[in-house]
């Protein structure tokens, strides 16, 4: 298709080819704004008996045609372009995670330095990192060779050393890769791509070692100096190889690639992109989480000390709500899951229920008890995934910090996390358990209990998981992507106001005065250990209502402006509203079982999480 001027794009068709479902969305510019028109889906057809991804795409597009009345496919099943009246689309784009997505191995010298930078580049590009091989990962060289040989990744990213530094160690790792003689996962007719992004002085020796065995690509060093990462070139090369090798090998993708107006992106890479764009446009800090059946992805953009937005993505490979549910249970432990349940359950029975969900992953909770239990597990899966994310999203490690006397009181250690819950502006959840929770406030409470936001934090969920399509759309028409993201993709849940800090004795935690848009004033004192819900919904256009608020944390608690400092701000509502969370941070549930259950019921009733009858049984 001919390239179009972004301003002329009126109709957009986008698909996301997931491992089980292919989702298509149709976006149109009506009355000067881009809006989602319809959505269709069909089973993905990468595996036998179809083995052609385009069949699933055509089926999903066919559903969009039926629902929208817009003719998108011609008699030869080709996408009609450009749009003319009620026929065709101006742009067709796609993302893909079908066939296992992009699977990479990362190798390098020092685990916490260059290798971590390489891992960040691979994850940021949307890859699943199968393993990380480092000179200092405590495995013996022959074990590392065995591991590399068995993995069969789509590609390897090799890093190591700063420019001008020692070359020996990175060449040693290259020798291990050469000895393993790794083969690519898909296709037997080509050599495994290896991207070298290490010390430029070692390029020659790495070439000599690997060139005969692999398809070697060289890009500028990912860590040219200790103090700076340069992830861009490696990420771009990953995307290029993804298109060139991985996508080209998957059944039907060559055809799909010829249809799209922009390169096909790996699904998580596209999600990361839209989150980064939104955060950068508004100059805010954002965390996004996508909890799936097998894995949980966490994306974040933080601005440590006012710096440019730093993007991070982590994948918790075995934390999910169906295939991996048993692992959540094993990692979190039973007491940690059950602390969220306002009733007792038999351990043996619970364990069997979890395993039965694992072996029959498509089942859904029918009883309220099962729903409560599933949401308790979700809180733990999210909590664990976020712990992993925090330990990965750090300032660069291995750098000597220059300190002045003023810094002595504010120790930002090398390798400290850049995740700051107090400065975080928005928390966006995605994935079945959050997006399809029967009551929206359940999603809000899952996010709050798992992430424990501090200060004032907006909460939202992705309505139908269209962040991937919007991510790739942003590369073609940024305005369309952001408009649809704000108006159709996000369901604004509301805002959480949580004063941080601990108080030993019960009593007042915060005074509040909120001027609601209807003229009503909600004011009062929130006690320590109490939660309150104040309704502040959406306007007739579906945009969240706003309310001016005066918030005064008491007894040394903090809302982000210092201990006890009063905050005057505007709160953003949503389908749930304003949640005042006086449980303190760090938040610790009462140890006494009876008190814990009482408090859980009190919070759940106040926030209308479950029906009264469900909690009183």
């Amino acid at each position, binding site marked *: 298709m001919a390239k179009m001027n972004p301003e002329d794009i009126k109709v957009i068709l986008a698909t996301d080819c997931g491992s089980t479902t292919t989702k298509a969305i149709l976006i149109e510019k009506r009355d000067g704004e881009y809006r989602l028109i319809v959505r269709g889906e069909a089973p993905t057809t990468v*595996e036998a008996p179809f083995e052609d991804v385009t069949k699933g795409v055509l089926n999903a597009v066919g559903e969009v045609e039926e629902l929208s009345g817009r003719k998108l496919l011609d008699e030869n099943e080709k996408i009609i372009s450009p749009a003319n009246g009620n026929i065709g689309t101006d742009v067709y784009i796609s993302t893909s995670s079908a066939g296992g997505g992009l699977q990479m191995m990362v190798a390098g010298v020092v685990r916490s330095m260059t290798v971590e930078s390489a891992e960040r580049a691979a994850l940021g590009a949307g890859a699943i990192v199968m393993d990380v091989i480092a000179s200092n990962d405590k495995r013996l060289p022959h074990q590392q*060779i065995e591991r590399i040989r068995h993995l069969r990744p789509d590609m390897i990213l090799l890093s190591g050393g700063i420019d001008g530094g020692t*070359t020996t160690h990175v060449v040693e790792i290259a020798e291990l890769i050469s000895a393993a003689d790794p083969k690519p996962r898909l296709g037997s007719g080509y050599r495994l791509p290896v991207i070298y992004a290490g010390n430029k002085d070692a390029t020659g020796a790495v070439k000599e070692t690997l060139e005969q065995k692999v398809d070697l690509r060289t890009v500028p060093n990912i860590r040219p100096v200790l103090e700076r990462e340069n992830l861009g070139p490696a990420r771009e090369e990953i995307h290029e190889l993804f298109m060139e090798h991985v996508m080209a090998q998957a059944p039907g993708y060559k055809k799909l690639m010829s249809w799209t107006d922009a390169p096909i992106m790996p699904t998580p890479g596209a999600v990361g992109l839209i989150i980064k764009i939104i955060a950068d446009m508004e100059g805010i800090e954002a965390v996004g989480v996508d909890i799936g059946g097998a894995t949980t992805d966490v994306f974040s953009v933080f601005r440590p000390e006012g710096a440019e937005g730093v993007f991070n993505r982590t994948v918790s490979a075995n934390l999910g709500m169906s295939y991996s549910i048993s692992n959540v249970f094993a990692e979190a432990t039973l007491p940690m899951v059950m602390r969220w349940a306002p009733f007792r359950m038999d351990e043996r029975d619970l*364990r069997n229920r979890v395993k039965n*969900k*694992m*072996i029959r992953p498509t089942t*859904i909770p029918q009883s309220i008890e*099962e729903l409560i239990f599933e949401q308790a597990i979700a809180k733990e899966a999210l909590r664990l995934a976020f712990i992993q994310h925090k330990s990965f999203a750090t300032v660069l490690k291995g750098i000597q910090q220059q300190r002045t006397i003023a810094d002595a009181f504010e120790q930002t250690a090398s390798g400290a996390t850049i995740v700051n819950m107090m400065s975080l502006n928005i928390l966006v959840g995605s994935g079945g358990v959050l997006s399809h929770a029967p009551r929206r406030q359940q999603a809000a409470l899952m996010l709050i209990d798992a992430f424990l936001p501090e200060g004032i934090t907006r909460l939202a969920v992705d309505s139908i998981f269209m962040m991937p399509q919007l991510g790739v759309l942003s590369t073609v028409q940024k305005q369309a992507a952001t408009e649809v993201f704000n108006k159709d993709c996000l369901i604004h849940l509301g805002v959480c106001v949580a004063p941080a800090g601990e108080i030993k004795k019960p009593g007042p935690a915060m005074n509040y005065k909120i001027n609601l848009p209807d003229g009503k004033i909600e004011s009062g004192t929130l006690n320590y250990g109490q939660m309150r819900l104040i309704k502040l919904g959406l306007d007739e256009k579906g945009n969240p209502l706003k309310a001016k608020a005066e918030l005064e944390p008491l007894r040394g608690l903090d809302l982000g402006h210092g201990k006890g400092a009063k905050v005057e701000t505007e709160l953003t509502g949503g389908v749930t509203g304003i949640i005042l969370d006086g449980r303190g941070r760090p938040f610790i549930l009462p140890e006494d079982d009876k008190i814990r259950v009482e408090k859980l019921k009190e919070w759940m009733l106040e926030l209308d999480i479950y029906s009264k009858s469900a909690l009183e049984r």
Partner: protein
Amino acid sequence: MGHAYTPGLKVTDKILIKKNRILPLKGEVIVKKGDLVKPDDVIARTHLPGPVEPFNVANILGLPPEDIEEAMLKKQGDTVSEGEIIARSKSFFGLFKSECRAKASGTVESISHVTGQVLLRGRPIPVEVKAYITGEVVEIFEKEGVAISTWGSFIQGIFGIGGETHGEIKTVVPDNTAILTDQFINADCKGKVIVGGSMVTADAIKKAAKVGAAGVVIGGFDDKDLRDFLGYDLGVAITGSEEIGITLIVTEGFGQINMAQRTFDLLKSKEGKLACINGATQIRAGVIRPEVIIPFDGDIRAKQKDADFREMGLGIGSPVRVIRHPHFGKLGSVTDLPAPLMKLESESHARVLEVEFKDGSRAVVPRANVEMIES
């Protein structure tokens, strides 16, 4: 989406079974098309590249990497034995000598003048692929393996542990509701595939492994017992490579659940026959379920009429099993399939069906929470 329900597990008396038996790397196929094979017959073999043992000769000899070429007594491609001297540094006026001995037998694969590292590749590891089932070789994949086909009974389990094995079927419990305890197991179970009822205890499975039983086929298994038996908590359902000396196949799920009557009856009717079983389970894209294959006696090449086996849609009267609480494990038949979404007790909206259980009681359950019982 077309199917809101889970397609059921296959339990069939007569079906044409075809199994591809493929080498991990290209090698030699040693049977030919039309050959009749037994489970333990080797059908293809190859050699995996030997393990690599790297060691830094430059460090051992105290030489700069660029000098090790001179010190090497063995060159690239040379064969060495364990303990053999492969490099020696030049002596200082003949007074000091440093030597480097091979840590393993193998071939010198590479000598690096950049890192001083020498890679020794060990002897190739032979790998054989067996037939796994009794049958006829119907297709040869050159240098890769074969397809073997047989007529037989086929039962898919829901979850298993342990790999491929085979043995005669031995039903040790009176009916499909009985719990398989260690009291049912004795020395006669050696080499057998034991069929139990609603659950197997941890003690029973341990005893079965101890007496050398090939496998156990059972309705349910308690997760706590699974943990006790494996010694760890299974996080993700990817199994088959456990080295536990026995293969376990669970037909219904976790907990005490009666083995479906039809499955039990089919197994019981095959008492004393050879069963080829595999516990390998993978519940993700490209689902793999554990299986019991009972090849027919007699001429397995006979062109019989295939049991009419196809995936049917869900309709009124379809036999189903509920696969989630609160009616988990109950069998019944569909009495109604209302089209609109309905609100569940959990307040989710989902497509549902009405099912009548064997005892005449009825319940409404989400379609996602039943599986078809296929015949």
